Protein backbone atom coordinates (compact mmCIF):
# COMPACT_ATOMS: atom_id res chain seq x y z
CA UNK A 1 0.00 0.00 0.00
CA UNK A 2 2.88 2.31 0.89
CA UNK A 3 6.37 1.57 -0.34
CA UNK A 4 9.52 3.64 0.21
CA UNK A 5 12.60 2.81 -1.85
CA UNK A 6 15.80 4.42 -0.58
CA UNK A 7 13.95 7.61 0.16
CA UNK A 8 15.90 10.61 1.35
CA UNK A 9 14.60 14.08 2.04
CA UNK A 10 16.81 17.10 2.55
CA UNK A 11 14.93 20.34 3.25
CA UNK A 12 17.76 22.84 2.97
CA UNK A 13 20.86 22.36 0.90
CA UNK A 14 23.66 21.08 3.09
CA UNK A 15 21.42 20.39 6.08
CA UNK A 16 21.16 17.03 7.80
CA UNK A 17 18.60 14.93 5.90
CA UNK A 18 15.17 14.65 7.52
CA UNK A 19 14.92 11.16 6.05
CA UNK A 20 17.99 9.16 5.09
CA UNK A 21 17.81 6.17 2.74
CA UNK A 22 14.59 4.77 4.14
CA UNK A 23 13.25 1.60 2.55
CA UNK A 24 10.09 0.00 3.87
CA UNK A 25 6.75 -1.38 2.84
CA UNK A 26 3.35 -1.20 4.51
CA UNK A 27 0.83 -3.80 3.35
CA UNK A 28 -2.84 -3.19 2.73
CA UNK A 29 -4.82 -3.35 5.98
CA UNK A 30 -1.79 -3.07 8.26
CA UNK A 31 -1.63 -0.96 11.42
CA UNK A 32 1.78 0.64 11.84
CA UNK A 33 3.20 2.80 14.61
CA UNK A 34 5.85 5.28 13.59
CA UNK A 35 7.91 6.15 16.64
CA UNK A 36 10.96 8.25 17.33
CA UNK A 37 12.02 11.46 19.01
CA UNK A 38 10.96 14.88 17.72
CA UNK A 39 12.85 15.64 14.54
CA UNK A 40 13.41 11.99 13.75
CA UNK A 41 11.52 12.28 10.47
CA UNK A 42 8.04 10.96 11.34
CA UNK A 43 6.18 13.97 10.02
CA UNK A 44 8.35 14.09 6.92
CA UNK A 45 7.43 10.47 6.29
CA UNK A 46 3.71 11.30 6.47
CA UNK A 47 4.12 14.41 4.32
CA UNK A 48 5.88 12.35 1.65
CA UNK A 49 2.99 9.88 1.61
CA UNK A 50 0.53 12.78 1.16
CA UNK A 51 2.86 14.24 -1.47
CA UNK A 52 3.00 17.49 0.40
CA UNK A 53 6.71 17.07 -0.05
CA UNK A 54 8.68 15.32 -2.78
CA UNK A 55 11.67 13.15 -1.92
CA UNK A 56 15.16 14.43 -2.67
CA UNK A 57 16.14 10.92 -3.69
CA UNK A 58 14.40 7.56 -3.95
CA UNK A 59 10.86 6.60 -4.84
CA UNK A 60 7.59 6.65 -2.96
CA UNK A 61 4.69 4.42 -4.04
CA UNK A 62 1.24 4.96 -2.56
CA UNK A 63 -1.80 2.88 -3.50
CA UNK A 64 0.02 1.55 -6.53
CA UNK A 65 1.09 4.95 -7.83
CA UNK A 66 4.63 6.18 -8.26
CA UNK A 67 4.47 9.62 -6.68
CA UNK A 68 7.58 10.83 -8.49
CA UNK A 69 5.77 10.57 -11.82
CA UNK A 70 2.38 11.69 -10.52
CA UNK A 71 1.44 15.00 -12.13
CA UNK A 72 0.42 17.88 -9.93
CA UNK A 73 -3.16 17.93 -11.08
CA UNK A 74 -3.61 14.31 -10.07
CA UNK A 75 -2.44 14.93 -6.52
CA UNK A 76 -5.96 15.76 -5.26
CA UNK A 77 -7.12 12.33 -6.46
CA UNK A 78 -4.32 10.70 -4.51
CA UNK A 79 -5.34 12.61 -1.39
CA UNK A 80 -8.94 11.46 -1.71
CA UNK A 81 -7.64 7.98 -0.95
CA UNK A 82 -5.79 9.15 2.13
CA UNK A 83 -7.35 10.37 5.35
CA UNK A 84 -5.27 12.48 7.71
CA UNK A 85 -5.64 13.27 11.41
CA UNK A 86 -3.47 15.70 13.38
CA UNK A 87 -2.57 16.51 16.95
CA UNK A 88 -4.33 19.90 16.69
CA UNK A 89 -7.56 18.47 15.16
CA UNK A 90 -7.77 21.22 12.49
CA UNK A 91 -11.52 21.67 12.66
CA UNK A 92 -13.35 24.71 11.32
CA UNK A 93 -14.57 26.62 14.40
CA UNK A 94 -17.54 28.28 12.71
CA UNK A 95 -19.01 25.08 11.36
CA UNK A 96 -20.99 22.46 13.25
CA UNK A 97 -19.80 18.88 13.71
CA UNK A 98 -21.97 17.78 10.80
CA UNK A 99 -20.76 20.61 8.56
CA UNK A 100 -17.13 19.93 9.42
CA UNK A 101 -17.44 16.34 8.27
CA UNK A 102 -19.65 17.21 5.30
CA UNK A 103 -17.09 19.83 4.21
CA UNK A 104 -14.65 17.08 3.22
CA UNK A 105 -17.23 15.65 0.82
CA UNK A 106 -18.58 18.97 -0.44
CA UNK A 107 -15.19 20.18 -1.60
CA UNK A 108 -14.60 17.08 -3.68
CA UNK A 109 -17.96 17.55 -5.33
CA UNK A 110 -19.97 14.69 -3.81
CA UNK A 111 -23.72 14.94 -4.40
CA UNK A 112 -25.95 16.11 -1.58
CA UNK A 113 -27.84 12.84 -1.08
CA UNK A 114 -24.54 11.01 -0.70
CA UNK A 115 -23.46 13.49 1.97
CA UNK A 116 -26.78 13.29 3.79
CA UNK A 117 -26.47 9.53 4.21
CA UNK A 118 -22.71 9.09 4.67
CA UNK A 119 -22.02 11.79 7.24
CA UNK A 120 -24.51 10.56 9.91
CA UNK A 121 -23.25 6.98 9.44
CA UNK A 122 -19.66 8.08 9.96
CA UNK A 123 -20.54 10.20 13.00
CA UNK A 124 -22.29 7.18 14.44
CA UNK A 125 -19.22 5.06 13.77
CA UNK A 126 -16.89 7.43 15.66
CA UNK A 127 -19.36 7.65 18.55
CA UNK A 128 -20.66 11.16 18.01
CA UNK A 129 -24.25 10.28 17.18
CA UNK A 130 -26.54 13.06 18.44
CA UNK A 131 -23.84 15.73 18.51
CA UNK A 132 -24.20 16.79 14.87
CA UNK A 133 -25.25 20.34 15.67
CA UNK A 134 -22.52 21.12 18.21
CA UNK A 135 -19.64 23.38 17.36
CA UNK A 136 -16.04 22.28 17.97
CA UNK A 137 -15.54 24.58 20.98
CA UNK A 138 -18.49 22.93 22.72
CA UNK A 139 -16.79 19.54 22.57
CA UNK A 140 -14.05 17.92 24.65
CA UNK A 141 -10.63 17.30 23.11
CA UNK A 142 -11.41 13.63 22.61
CA UNK A 143 -14.68 14.44 20.89
CA UNK A 144 -13.00 17.00 18.66
CA UNK A 145 -10.46 14.39 17.60
CA UNK A 146 -13.35 12.03 16.82
CA UNK A 147 -14.80 14.71 14.54
CA UNK A 148 -11.42 15.00 12.83
CA UNK A 149 -11.27 11.22 12.41
CA UNK A 150 -14.80 11.20 11.02
CA UNK A 151 -13.77 13.85 8.52
CA UNK A 152 -10.69 11.86 7.52
CA UNK A 153 -12.67 8.64 7.18
CA UNK A 154 -15.94 9.89 5.69
CA UNK A 155 -14.74 9.33 2.12
CA UNK A 156 -13.67 5.77 3.05
CA UNK A 157 -9.97 6.23 2.23
CA UNK A 158 -7.77 3.19 1.87
CA UNK A 159 -5.07 4.78 4.03
CA UNK A 160 -5.44 6.74 7.27
CA UNK A 161 -2.45 8.77 8.42
CA UNK A 162 -2.42 10.02 12.01
CA UNK A 163 0.23 12.47 13.19
CA UNK A 164 0.29 12.19 17.00
CA UNK A 165 -3.51 12.05 17.25
CA UNK A 166 -3.38 11.55 21.03
CA UNK A 167 -0.71 14.18 21.67
CA UNK A 168 -3.17 16.62 23.24
CA UNK A 169 -5.32 14.08 25.07
CA UNK A 170 -5.25 12.43 28.48
CA UNK A 171 -4.52 8.67 28.71
CA UNK A 172 -8.15 7.55 29.08
CA UNK A 173 -9.35 9.64 26.18
CA UNK A 174 -6.36 8.51 24.15
CA UNK A 175 -7.35 4.93 24.71
CA UNK A 176 -10.79 5.66 23.29
CA UNK A 177 -9.24 7.22 20.21
CA UNK A 178 -6.98 4.17 19.80
CA UNK A 179 -9.97 1.83 19.98
CA UNK A 180 -11.59 3.90 17.27
CA UNK A 181 -8.50 3.77 15.05
CA UNK A 182 -8.31 0.04 15.63
CA UNK A 183 -11.93 -0.32 14.59
CA UNK A 184 -11.26 1.67 11.42
CA UNK A 185 -8.24 -0.55 10.76
CA UNK A 186 -10.47 -3.60 11.04
CA UNK A 187 -12.61 -2.31 8.16
CA UNK A 188 -9.56 -2.89 5.96
CA UNK A 189 -8.09 0.60 6.12
CA UNK A 190 -4.32 0.83 6.36
CA UNK A 191 -3.42 2.98 9.38
CA UNK A 192 -0.05 4.67 9.90
CA UNK A 193 0.21 6.52 13.20
CA UNK A 194 3.15 8.64 14.29
CA UNK A 195 3.29 8.85 18.06
CA UNK A 196 5.31 9.55 21.21
CA UNK A 197 2.87 7.68 23.40
CA UNK A 198 4.78 4.63 24.68
CA UNK A 199 1.89 3.31 26.78
CA UNK A 200 -0.35 3.08 23.75
CA UNK A 201 2.29 1.46 21.58
CA UNK A 202 3.11 -1.08 24.27
CA UNK A 203 -0.55 -1.85 24.79
CA UNK A 204 -1.58 -2.24 21.15
CA UNK A 205 1.19 -4.62 20.11
CA UNK A 206 1.20 -3.64 16.46
CA UNK A 207 4.03 -3.30 13.97
CA UNK A 208 6.47 -0.59 15.12
CA UNK A 209 8.83 1.35 12.86
CA UNK A 210 11.34 3.48 14.70
CA UNK A 211 13.09 6.42 13.12
CA UNK A 212 16.11 8.15 14.57
CA UNK A 213 17.58 11.29 12.96
CA UNK A 214 16.05 10.28 9.67
CA UNK A 215 17.21 6.68 9.60
CA UNK A 216 15.03 3.65 10.13
CA UNK A 217 16.55 1.90 13.15
CA UNK A 218 13.87 -0.69 13.86
CA UNK A 219 11.02 -2.47 12.09
CA UNK A 220 9.37 -4.91 14.41
CA UNK A 221 6.04 -6.66 14.17
CA UNK A 222 3.99 -6.76 17.40
CA UNK A 223 6.59 -4.39 18.84
CA UNK A 224 6.80 -2.09 21.82
CA UNK A 225 7.85 1.54 22.08
CA UNK A 226 11.37 1.40 23.47
CA UNK A 227 12.80 -2.08 23.03
CA UNK A 228 15.76 -0.95 20.97
CA UNK A 229 17.26 1.07 23.79
Amino acid at each position, binding site marked *: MIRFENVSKVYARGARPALDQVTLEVERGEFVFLVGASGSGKSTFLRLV*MREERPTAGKVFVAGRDLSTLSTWK*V*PHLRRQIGAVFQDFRL*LPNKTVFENVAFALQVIGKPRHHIMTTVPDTLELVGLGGKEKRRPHELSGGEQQRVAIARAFVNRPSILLADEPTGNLDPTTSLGIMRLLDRINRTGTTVVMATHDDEIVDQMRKRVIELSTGEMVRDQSRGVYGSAR
Partner: protein
Amino acid sequence: MRLQFILSEIGIGLRRNLSMSVSVILVTFVSLTFVGAAALLQQQITQMKDDWYDKVEVSVFLCAQGSEEPTCAAGEVTEEQRTSIEAELEAPEIEPYVQTVYFETKEQAFESFREKMADQWWAAEVTAADMPSSYRIKLADPEMYQVVADVLTGRQGVEEVLDQRRLFDSLFLVLNRATLVSIGIAGIMLLAAVLLITTTIRLSAMSRRRETGIMRLVGASNLFIQLPFMLEGAIAATVGAALAVGALWLGVRYLVTDWLGGQVQWIDYVDSTDVLTVAPFLLAIAIVLAAISSVVTLSRYTKV
Protein backbone atom coordinates in the same frame (compact mmCIF):
# COMPACT_ATOMS: atom_id res chain seq x y z
CA MET B 1 -23.97 21.12 -4.67
CA ARG B 2 -20.73 22.39 -6.14
CA LEU B 3 -22.13 25.60 -7.52
CA GLN B 4 -24.11 26.38 -4.41
CA PHE B 5 -21.06 25.67 -2.29
CA ILE B 6 -18.80 27.90 -4.37
CA LEU B 7 -21.37 30.70 -4.32
CA SER B 8 -21.66 30.58 -0.57
CA GLU B 9 -17.86 30.63 -0.27
CA ILE B 10 -17.75 33.72 -2.48
CA GLY B 11 -20.43 35.40 -0.40
CA ILE B 12 -18.49 34.70 2.78
CA GLY B 13 -15.29 36.03 1.23
CA LEU B 14 -16.84 39.24 -0.06
CA ARG B 15 -18.57 39.96 3.24
CA ARG B 16 -15.55 39.17 5.36
CA ASN B 17 -13.44 41.59 3.34
CA LEU B 18 -16.18 44.12 2.77
CA SER B 19 -14.01 47.23 2.98
CA MET B 20 -11.43 45.72 0.64
CA SER B 21 -14.12 44.64 -1.81
CA VAL B 22 -15.58 48.14 -1.79
CA SER B 23 -12.17 49.68 -2.43
CA VAL B 24 -11.58 47.29 -5.35
CA ILE B 25 -14.95 48.29 -6.77
CA LEU B 26 -14.21 51.99 -6.40
CA VAL B 27 -10.73 51.86 -7.86
CA THR B 28 -11.80 49.82 -10.88
CA PHE B 29 -14.77 52.15 -11.24
CA VAL B 30 -12.61 55.28 -11.39
CA SER B 31 -9.89 53.75 -13.55
CA LEU B 32 -12.28 52.30 -16.09
CA THR B 33 -14.20 55.57 -16.23
CA PHE B 34 -10.99 57.21 -17.41
CA VAL B 35 -10.31 54.41 -19.87
CA GLY B 36 -13.83 54.80 -21.20
CA ALA B 37 -13.51 58.59 -21.38
CA ALA B 38 -10.31 58.23 -23.41
CA ALA B 39 -12.04 55.80 -25.76
CA LEU B 40 -15.00 58.15 -26.19
CA LEU B 41 -12.71 61.12 -26.88
CA GLN B 42 -10.99 59.15 -29.62
CA GLN B 43 -14.38 58.12 -30.93
CA GLN B 44 -15.38 61.77 -31.00
CA ILE B 45 -12.22 62.70 -32.92
CA THR B 46 -12.79 59.95 -35.48
CA GLN B 47 -16.37 61.00 -35.88
CA MET B 48 -15.41 64.63 -36.48
CA LYS B 49 -12.70 63.65 -38.94
CA ASP B 50 -15.16 61.50 -40.83
CA ASP B 51 -17.61 64.37 -40.95
CA TRP B 52 -15.26 67.13 -41.89
CA TYR B 53 -12.46 65.62 -43.88
CA ASP B 54 -14.96 64.70 -46.58
CA LYS B 55 -15.75 68.34 -47.02
CA VAL B 56 -12.30 69.84 -46.91
CA GLU B 57 -9.92 70.31 -49.81
CA VAL B 58 -6.38 71.35 -50.50
CA SER B 59 -6.19 74.78 -52.06
CA VAL B 60 -3.28 75.62 -54.31
CA PHE B 61 -3.27 79.39 -54.60
CA LEU B 62 -1.57 80.68 -57.70
CA CYS B 63 0.29 83.94 -57.91
CA ALA B 64 -1.85 87.03 -58.27
CA GLN B 65 -0.77 90.56 -59.03
CA GLY B 66 1.51 91.92 -56.33
CA SER B 67 2.16 88.59 -54.57
CA GLU B 68 5.31 88.81 -52.50
CA GLU B 69 6.34 85.16 -52.43
CA PRO B 70 9.70 84.51 -54.17
CA THR B 71 7.96 82.01 -56.45
CA CYS B 72 5.81 84.87 -57.69
CA ALA B 73 8.69 87.15 -58.64
CA ALA B 74 7.59 86.95 -62.27
CA GLY B 75 4.23 88.49 -61.40
CA GLU B 76 0.90 86.89 -62.09
CA VAL B 77 0.86 83.21 -62.94
CA THR B 78 1.39 82.54 -66.65
CA GLU B 79 -0.39 80.09 -68.87
CA GLU B 80 2.84 78.13 -69.17
CA GLN B 81 3.21 77.75 -65.40
CA ARG B 82 -0.39 76.61 -65.10
CA THR B 83 0.13 73.95 -67.73
CA SER B 84 3.15 72.62 -65.89
CA ILE B 85 1.24 72.55 -62.59
CA GLU B 86 -1.62 70.67 -64.20
CA ALA B 87 0.83 68.25 -65.75
CA GLU B 88 2.32 67.75 -62.31
CA LEU B 89 -1.09 66.94 -60.81
CA GLU B 90 -1.60 64.29 -63.45
CA ALA B 91 1.90 62.85 -63.06
CA PRO B 92 1.92 59.22 -61.92
CA GLU B 93 3.46 59.98 -58.48
CA ILE B 94 0.60 62.28 -57.44
CA GLU B 95 -2.27 61.12 -59.58
CA PRO B 96 -3.36 58.22 -57.32
CA TYR B 97 -3.81 60.56 -54.33
CA VAL B 98 -5.93 63.05 -56.17
CA GLN B 99 -9.62 62.46 -56.50
CA THR B 100 -10.80 65.61 -58.32
CA VAL B 101 -9.20 68.87 -59.33
CA TYR B 102 -11.18 71.97 -59.92
CA PHE B 103 -9.82 75.22 -61.15
CA GLU B 104 -11.19 78.39 -59.61
CA THR B 105 -10.60 81.45 -61.73
CA LYS B 106 -9.97 84.91 -60.37
CA GLU B 107 -13.51 85.89 -61.30
CA GLN B 108 -15.04 82.95 -59.48
CA ALA B 109 -12.88 83.69 -56.45
CA PHE B 110 -14.01 87.30 -56.58
CA GLU B 111 -17.67 86.23 -56.79
CA SER B 112 -17.50 84.06 -53.73
CA PHE B 113 -15.45 86.70 -51.94
CA ARG B 114 -18.07 89.33 -52.61
CA GLU B 115 -20.81 87.02 -51.43
CA LYS B 116 -19.10 86.37 -48.13
CA MET B 117 -17.72 89.82 -47.49
CA ALA B 118 -20.41 92.03 -49.01
CA ASP B 119 -21.11 93.81 -45.76
CA GLN B 120 -17.48 94.70 -45.08
CA TRP B 121 -16.65 98.31 -45.94
CA TRP B 122 -13.22 97.47 -47.35
CA ALA B 123 -14.56 94.83 -49.71
CA ALA B 124 -15.49 97.51 -52.20
CA GLU B 125 -11.80 98.28 -52.77
CA VAL B 126 -11.05 94.76 -53.97
CA THR B 127 -11.23 93.90 -57.65
CA ALA B 128 -11.10 90.59 -59.47
CA ALA B 129 -7.52 91.33 -60.40
CA ASP B 130 -6.51 91.21 -56.74
CA MET B 131 -7.89 87.75 -56.26
CA PRO B 132 -5.69 84.69 -56.75
CA SER B 133 -6.85 81.93 -59.01
CA SER B 134 -6.47 78.49 -57.44
CA TYR B 135 -6.71 74.77 -57.85
CA ARG B 136 -9.08 73.09 -55.42
CA ILE B 137 -7.95 69.53 -54.97
CA LYS B 138 -9.98 66.84 -53.32
CA LEU B 139 -7.69 64.10 -52.10
CA ALA B 140 -8.52 60.42 -52.25
CA ASP B 141 -6.97 60.09 -48.80
CA PRO B 142 -6.88 63.38 -46.88
CA GLU B 143 -3.94 62.07 -44.81
CA MET B 144 -1.73 62.23 -47.93
CA TYR B 145 -1.77 66.00 -48.00
CA GLN B 146 1.98 66.25 -47.48
CA VAL B 147 2.79 64.44 -50.72
CA VAL B 148 0.83 66.91 -52.77
CA ALA B 149 2.13 69.88 -50.81
CA ASP B 150 5.74 68.78 -51.25
CA VAL B 151 5.44 68.59 -55.00
CA LEU B 152 3.64 71.89 -55.52
CA THR B 153 5.17 74.13 -52.87
CA GLY B 154 8.01 76.26 -54.17
CA ARG B 155 7.02 75.76 -57.79
CA GLN B 156 7.04 78.86 -59.98
CA GLY B 157 3.59 80.40 -60.08
CA VAL B 158 2.34 78.77 -56.86
CA GLU B 159 1.90 81.20 -54.03
CA GLU B 160 0.73 78.88 -51.30
CA VAL B 161 -0.55 75.36 -50.74
CA LEU B 162 -3.13 75.34 -47.99
CA ASP B 163 -4.64 72.29 -46.34
CA GLN B 164 -7.96 73.21 -44.88
CA ARG B 165 -7.55 70.40 -42.38
CA ARG B 166 -4.95 72.57 -40.67
CA LEU B 167 -7.83 74.66 -39.41
CA PHE B 168 -8.97 71.74 -37.23
CA ASP B 169 -5.53 70.86 -35.99
CA SER B 170 -5.68 72.91 -32.81
CA LEU B 171 -9.05 71.42 -31.86
CA PHE B 172 -7.80 67.88 -32.42
CA LEU B 173 -4.62 68.73 -30.54
CA VAL B 174 -6.69 69.67 -27.48
CA LEU B 175 -8.78 66.52 -27.75
CA ASN B 176 -5.72 64.31 -28.23
CA ARG B 177 -4.00 65.86 -25.23
CA ALA B 178 -7.14 65.24 -23.18
CA THR B 179 -7.05 61.61 -24.33
CA LEU B 180 -3.43 61.31 -23.24
CA VAL B 181 -4.21 62.76 -19.81
CA SER B 182 -7.13 60.33 -19.49
CA ILE B 183 -4.96 57.40 -20.47
CA GLY B 184 -2.26 58.49 -18.04
CA ILE B 185 -4.67 58.70 -15.13
CA ALA B 186 -6.31 55.46 -16.22
CA GLY B 187 -2.93 53.73 -16.29
CA ILE B 188 -2.05 54.79 -12.77
CA MET B 189 -5.49 53.87 -11.48
CA LEU B 190 -5.39 50.50 -13.24
CA LEU B 191 -2.05 49.77 -11.61
CA ALA B 192 -3.60 50.68 -8.25
CA ALA B 193 -6.54 48.43 -9.09
CA VAL B 194 -4.28 45.47 -9.86
CA LEU B 195 -2.36 45.95 -6.62
CA LEU B 196 -5.56 46.30 -4.65
CA ILE B 197 -7.13 43.22 -6.18
CA THR B 198 -3.94 41.31 -5.46
CA THR B 199 -3.97 42.45 -1.84
CA THR B 200 -7.65 41.68 -1.46
CA ILE B 201 -7.28 38.17 -2.81
CA ARG B 202 -4.25 37.62 -0.61
CA LEU B 203 -6.11 38.81 2.48
CA SER B 204 -9.05 36.66 1.58
CA ALA B 205 -6.80 33.65 1.05
CA MET B 206 -4.99 34.28 4.34
CA SER B 207 -8.20 34.63 6.30
CA ARG B 208 -9.36 31.30 4.94
CA ARG B 209 -6.10 29.44 5.21
CA ARG B 210 -7.69 26.94 7.58
CA GLU B 211 -10.39 26.09 5.07
CA THR B 212 -8.06 25.89 2.10
CA GLY B 213 -5.63 23.80 4.14
CA ILE B 214 -8.35 21.27 4.86
CA MET B 215 -9.53 21.37 1.27
CA ARG B 216 -6.07 20.44 0.07
CA LEU B 217 -5.86 17.75 2.73
CA VAL B 218 -9.04 16.00 1.68
CA GLY B 219 -8.18 16.25 -2.01
CA ALA B 220 -10.19 19.17 -3.39
CA SER B 221 -8.94 20.10 -6.83
CA ASN B 222 -6.87 23.23 -7.29
CA LEU B 223 -9.53 24.87 -9.37
CA PHE B 224 -12.14 24.19 -6.72
CA ILE B 225 -9.95 25.78 -4.06
CA GLN B 226 -9.01 28.80 -6.14
CA LEU B 227 -12.25 29.49 -7.97
CA PRO B 228 -13.99 31.31 -5.10
CA PHE B 229 -11.05 33.69 -4.72
CA MET B 230 -10.81 34.32 -8.46
CA LEU B 231 -14.52 34.95 -8.71
CA GLU B 232 -14.40 37.30 -5.71
CA GLY B 233 -11.87 39.47 -7.51
CA ALA B 234 -13.70 39.16 -10.80
CA ILE B 235 -17.07 40.07 -9.29
CA ALA B 236 -15.69 43.14 -7.51
CA ALA B 237 -13.91 44.27 -10.68
CA THR B 238 -17.01 43.65 -12.80
CA VAL B 239 -19.16 45.70 -10.46
CA GLY B 240 -16.58 48.47 -10.78
CA ALA B 241 -16.73 48.22 -14.57
CA ALA B 242 -20.53 48.31 -14.50
CA LEU B 243 -20.41 51.47 -12.39
CA ALA B 244 -17.93 53.00 -14.84
CA VAL B 245 -20.25 52.24 -17.76
CA GLY B 246 -23.13 53.76 -15.82
CA ALA B 247 -21.13 56.90 -15.04
CA LEU B 248 -20.05 57.30 -18.66
CA TRP B 249 -23.58 56.78 -19.86
CA LEU B 250 -24.91 59.45 -17.51
CA GLY B 251 -22.03 61.76 -18.41
CA VAL B 252 -22.62 61.45 -22.15
CA ARG B 253 -26.38 61.64 -21.77
CA TYR B 254 -26.52 64.76 -19.62
CA LEU B 255 -23.19 66.52 -20.16
CA VAL B 256 -22.59 65.93 -23.85
CA THR B 257 -25.93 65.29 -25.47
CA ASP B 258 -28.08 67.63 -23.38
CA TRP B 259 -25.72 70.41 -22.31
CA LEU B 260 -22.91 70.56 -24.86
CA GLY B 261 -25.26 69.58 -27.68
CA GLY B 262 -27.47 72.49 -26.70
CA GLN B 263 -24.57 74.96 -26.59
CA VAL B 264 -22.63 74.06 -29.71
CA GLN B 265 -24.88 72.49 -32.28
CA TRP B 266 -22.72 72.14 -35.37
CA ILE B 267 -20.75 69.19 -34.02
CA ASP B 268 -21.97 65.63 -34.22
CA TYR B 269 -21.31 64.37 -30.70
CA VAL B 270 -20.79 60.88 -29.34
CA ASP B 271 -23.98 59.57 -27.78
CA SER B 272 -25.16 56.88 -25.36
CA THR B 273 -24.93 54.16 -28.01
CA ASP B 274 -21.19 54.83 -28.25
CA VAL B 275 -20.97 54.21 -24.50
CA LEU B 276 -22.62 50.85 -25.04
CA THR B 277 -20.03 49.91 -27.68
CA VAL B 278 -17.26 50.80 -25.23
CA ALA B 279 -18.92 48.89 -22.36
CA PRO B 280 -17.88 45.33 -23.37
CA PHE B 281 -14.25 46.43 -23.59
CA LEU B 282 -14.38 47.94 -20.12
CA LEU B 283 -15.90 44.74 -18.74
CA ALA B 284 -13.26 42.71 -20.53
CA ILE B 285 -10.47 44.87 -19.09
CA ALA B 286 -11.91 44.45 -15.59
CA ILE B 287 -12.11 40.68 -15.94
CA VAL B 288 -8.63 40.38 -17.45
CA LEU B 289 -7.19 42.52 -14.64
CA ALA B 290 -8.88 40.42 -12.00
CA ALA B 291 -7.77 37.22 -13.70
CA ILE B 292 -4.14 38.31 -13.94
CA SER B 293 -4.07 39.45 -10.33
CA SER B 294 -5.66 36.27 -9.03
CA VAL B 295 -3.45 33.94 -11.04
CA VAL B 296 -0.34 35.74 -9.81
CA THR B 297 -1.52 35.80 -6.20
CA LEU B 298 -3.03 32.36 -5.95
CA SER B 299 -0.14 30.53 -7.52
CA ARG B 300 1.82 31.75 -4.52
CA TYR B 301 -0.73 31.38 -1.75
CA THR B 302 -2.70 28.25 -2.46
CA LYS B 303 -0.28 25.85 -4.03
CA VAL B 304 -0.80 22.11 -3.84
